[in-house]
């Protein structure tokens, strides 16, 4: 059973045992596979200055195993874009309570591009938008490799460029602002054929959440086959 869990400072104690494998997976993926050597650390864990208590994580768990994740940082605090890649954004710095920055979006290689059931990558993209709507965000900033842009366009994520793509470590990388809105969430939802919300909010009952748009209205096809 695939579940996507919201993990933040309020409930982190419930997920402590996942953090060691999480940082090790990040090291495997970003240092060993993708060779982002700036992130290399002798202890085999990839942890950076943005893994603070204000970071929010989405953990994708399959029967208790971590198979994918994503990190969201408030743009009111330092982010990759503000501190490391400021030159990628020429539209002007974005520091807003309603915008978070996404980074370290990954799915473990064995679970990429699956065809049975919704794809894990798509689930994560849908889940973060569900999180954004729930806590009242209007957008996400992301520093990403440019080849993602057509994929975003195809799945309905509306990305606005903040500057020109620049070569970084052999890849063309740029900064974008992505809309977080109900229309996009609904469109993602119906594309991957979900019938209920994706997020698990364990230990977060104290958080005020905005209601999600009604899903039952979008679930049935416009024309139901007679049965």
């Amino acid at each position, binding site marked *: 059973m695939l579940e996507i869990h919201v993990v933040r400072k309020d409930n982190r104690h419930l997920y402590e045992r996942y953090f060691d494998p999480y940082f090790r997976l990040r090291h495997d993926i970003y240092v060993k596979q993708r060779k982002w050597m700036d992130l290399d650390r002798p202890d085999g864990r990839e942890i950076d200055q943005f893994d603070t208590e204000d970071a929010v994580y989405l953990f994708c768990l399959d029967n208790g195993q971590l198979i994918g994740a994503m990190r969201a940082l408030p743009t009111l605090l330092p982010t990759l874009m503000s501190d490391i890649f*400021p*030159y990628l954004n*020429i*539209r002007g710095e974005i520091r807003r309570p309603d915008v978070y920055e996404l980074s370290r979006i990954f799915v473990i290689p064995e679970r990429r*591009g699956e*065809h*049975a*059931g919704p*794809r894990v990558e798509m689930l994560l993209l849908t889940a973060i938008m569900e999180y954004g709507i729930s806590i009242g965000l209007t957008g996400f900033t992301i520093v990403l*490799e*440019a*080849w993602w*842009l*057509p*994929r975003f*366009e*195809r799945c*309905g994520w509306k990305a*606005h*460029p*903040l*500057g*020109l*793509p*620049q*070569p970084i470590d*052999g*890849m*063309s990388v*740029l900064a974008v602002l992505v809309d977080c809105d109900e229309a996009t969430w*609904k*469109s993602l939802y*119906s*594309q*991957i*054929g979900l019938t209920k919300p994706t997020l698990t909010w364990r230990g977060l009952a104290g958080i005020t959440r905005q209601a999600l748009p009604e899903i039952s209205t*979008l*679930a*049935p*096809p*416009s*024309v*139901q*086959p007679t*049965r």
Partner: protein
Amino acid sequence: MQNLEPYWGRRALDFVDAIEASKTTACVISQFERMIGNLGFHAYIMAGIPTSGQSLKQLTVANGWPAEWFELYDRENLSSVDPVPRHCYNTLNPFEWKDAPYDREYDKPAHRVMTRARDFRFHEGFCIPIHYDDATGAISIAGEHPYLDPDTRSALHLMSVFAHGRLRALSKPASIGPRRLSDIEAEVLRWAARGKTAWETGQIMRISERNVRWHIEEAQRKLMTTNKTATVAVALVNREIVL
């Protein structure tokens, strides 16, 4: 890199804003053609790269090639020997045509395409690969002496990707409600609607029969139907597929 004069950056962002605000494909195309014209390009194509059973025509998003070249290219299926589309499968980054590798001595068909392209004043070209999970495409732009310094390349890359995205968004068939099927699921259903079996569809699309069945099952799950016939019917009525 940090101290770039943002002239090209601003220009590219203004272009993207204008493209996003455009309401028709004709409007997007005329702005795109003017922009590449200013950079010294006179021809372009935005299209999926055909695999067996597909024609270039059906995969074309925008065609700014001279008619004669397009006809020749489509008729002789040159995309199967052209080193430029071939290189798209091997890279995620944009590249210049001259950097698409091929063996000049032994790969005669590839060399012939590159030589014939010169008859159309395609002396230099720039290609942006487009990668989806189930398909690969490209935006390819050619001219005699285009500007291709690093800043211009970055700007051209950004502007082209957004023009391509906007054209796709504007030319999607108006379905009832949001679209649920992926491109490949829709294609499998279109063949099913024409009476092809899973095996036949697999042969046509060059994927395995098992894979075809998978896509049909995914479509079935998404449309909440119970069998292939109902899935095709619901997809047609909702204009998820058009025959």
